[in-house]
């Protein structure tokens, strides 16, 4: 059974149709890359999957892990294992990263019927995770994303992902604006999560990330539709020729 099945998904924002019939099937263990020009609807798709208010589904359905994903509240989706790494991670002044992540991990543990961590247990747990990933955890002492550089914000998303161990990770341009070291760190985080029961949707502009995170499938999203799908060679083709000729071919 597919982990994620999107069928003829239509969605609008402020009364304007952005997603115009998306079809996509992701099997457990797979990594799918979604590429496409700016404004094609990539972030909209990720928000619809995560359940953001204001992104209204006007048609189609999304089956995730046998459940009707669109019926669930955002927090239920997260507790069921959906994780969105935001293109623009949100700053939350006054909330320390550790506090935020502890709430998050405990919400998930509670949902799954596991005992919640107390503050001490949690610090130990997170340290372990960060160490496994070779990732500094000093960011967690600071207020969530406040005053972080672009790269730090993306690393923070990756750390959160590693800690929450999602079944379906959606990475919305997590690679944009990263230098090569930060990019490797993010890629390592993603690769560490690759497992037969998990899947990832990697939204990216660049072939670069896909050198490290090799996708099973690549899709081109343009104007709210997937206009072409292929294997990893499609990403190389896009890198070489740009979107224009694929868009023309599709038109």
């Amino acid at each position: 059974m597919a982990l994620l099945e999107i069928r003829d998904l239509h969605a609008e924002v402020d009364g304007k149709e952005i997603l115009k019939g998306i079809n996509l099937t992701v099997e457990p263990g797979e990594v799918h890359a979604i590429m496409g020009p700016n404004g094609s609807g990539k972030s909209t798709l990720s928000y619809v999957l995560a359940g953001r208010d204001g992104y209204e589904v006007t048609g189609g359905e999304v089956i995730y892990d046998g459940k009707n994903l669109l019926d669930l509240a955002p927090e239920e989706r997260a507790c069921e294992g959906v994780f969105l790494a935001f293109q623009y991670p949100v700053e939350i002044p006054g909330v320390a990263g550790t506090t935020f992540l502890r709430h998050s991990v405990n919400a998930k543990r509670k949902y799954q019927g596991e005992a919640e961590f107390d503050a001490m247990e949690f610090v130990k747990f997170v340290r372990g995770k960060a160490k496994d990933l070779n990732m500094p955890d000093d960011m967690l002492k600071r207020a969530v994303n406040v005053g972080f550089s672009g790269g730090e914000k993306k690393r923070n998303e990756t750390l959160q992902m590693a800690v929450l161990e999602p079944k379906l990770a959606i990475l919305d341009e997590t690679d944009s604006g990263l230098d090569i070291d930060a990019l490797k760190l993010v890629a390592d985080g993603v690769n560490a999560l690759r497992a037969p029961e998990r899947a990832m949707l990697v939204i990216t502009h660049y072939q670069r990330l896909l050198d490290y995170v090799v996708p099973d499938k690549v899709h081109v999203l343009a104007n709210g539709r997937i206009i072409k799908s292929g294997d990893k060679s499609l990403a190389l083709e896009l890198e070489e020729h740009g979107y224009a000729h694929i868009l023309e071919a599709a038109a």
Partner: protein
Amino acid sequence: MSGNVQEQTLEPVLERLLDAAPGGRPADEGARGPLAALRAEGRRAIAAAGLPTQKSEPWKYTSLNALRKVEWSGPAGDGADFDTVKSALPVLDAYTVVLLNGRFDSVLSDLNGLPKGVRVLPLPEAMSDSAVTDTLASLIPLDMAPMAALNTAHLDDGVLVRIDAGKALDKPLHIVSVGYAGSAPAAYHPRFLIQLDENAEATVIESHIGLKGAPTFSNTVTEVVLAPSARLGHYKLQDQAVDGFDLSTTAIRCSDKSVYDGFTLSLGLGTVRNDVRMTLDGEHVEGRLNGAYLGHGGSHVDNTTFIDHAKPNSTSREVFKGVLADESRGVFQGKILVRPDAQNTDGHQLNKSLLLSDKAEADSKPELEIYADDVRCSHGATIGALDDEQLFYLRARGIDAVTARAILVQAFLMEALDEIQKASVRDALHEHLAARLQPLFKGGLV
């Protein structure tokens, strides 16, 4: 001039309140000396002005009509349960003064080991010192401050804090003012005078706690005098358990190079009104007047401040942040006066309100009066709801909507507390606030 004519026209509530004053009516006034003279002056001023009404501009947003309907009696306070007081207080390693309904309680107070050059005394014991008697009521124009006048009419007990030149308090001083009315509503009028001589340093926390019972009416006056280069951290917690009245007048006078770091945290029920007047009467003064408040139930929290830049080269900073839930109302009125002399003044004012319900209300009134030409003054006010993006980010990490809201509300108030410069007090209030919010969140605050 004590006007018998005016006394006859007193509204009943005021007459009743004044009846409870020490010495009662002027006719049978027994006490003599400086306290009695000040009391007479207070009585004259409040009798002439009457209790404030909303017709008076500074009281435009705050009504005392509910206070007028209560049959107040004098202090009493017997039977107060001090275990509940403890849970209402931040945990601090501090010297402690406890007042019950305005009366210095030497049994509950703990002033052991006060360093040399530091005096913390019940006010009556300090009245032989002319530095005290000359200062009391000298910072506040009683004719323009009716609540301070009412307090002065009751002048009887309170606390003097005096730090000699070059001396420092080695631990904070925690003044705990407890109000308790068993079955009959009780009014009381605590009085504090804090004097720091040249280059002296202290941290003073005032906790104003109202216990469960009949309503209490606390009408506090605090006067603060900072000599050159003195440094005072002056922090206040207000938390009434029932719909009572917590009214206060604070006057601060800062001389050259002194630092005043003030913060007021209001968490309780009922009507809260804080009148603060800070005079930067010196050069290179750093005056900080900050605060945070949580309105809930039907509470009403009014912070009305007046910052008077009287001399050049001084800095003031004022940040008040409020969360308003349920049917509460928050009022911030911030007047900054920069006198013609006060060149090179730096003033910053900000009021931020977070509304959690349709029935909550925030009023914000900045008022800048600037007569010097070389000044930097900024002010801002924002009133808004919780941020949708932040809420979604939290929910996308598995945190339910109510918890997400609670996290953001707590963060908003915690951030406001960051203005407190004294780290130990800031940490203690952070912890206290977190604990205080939990039952409110469980009770549906957000």
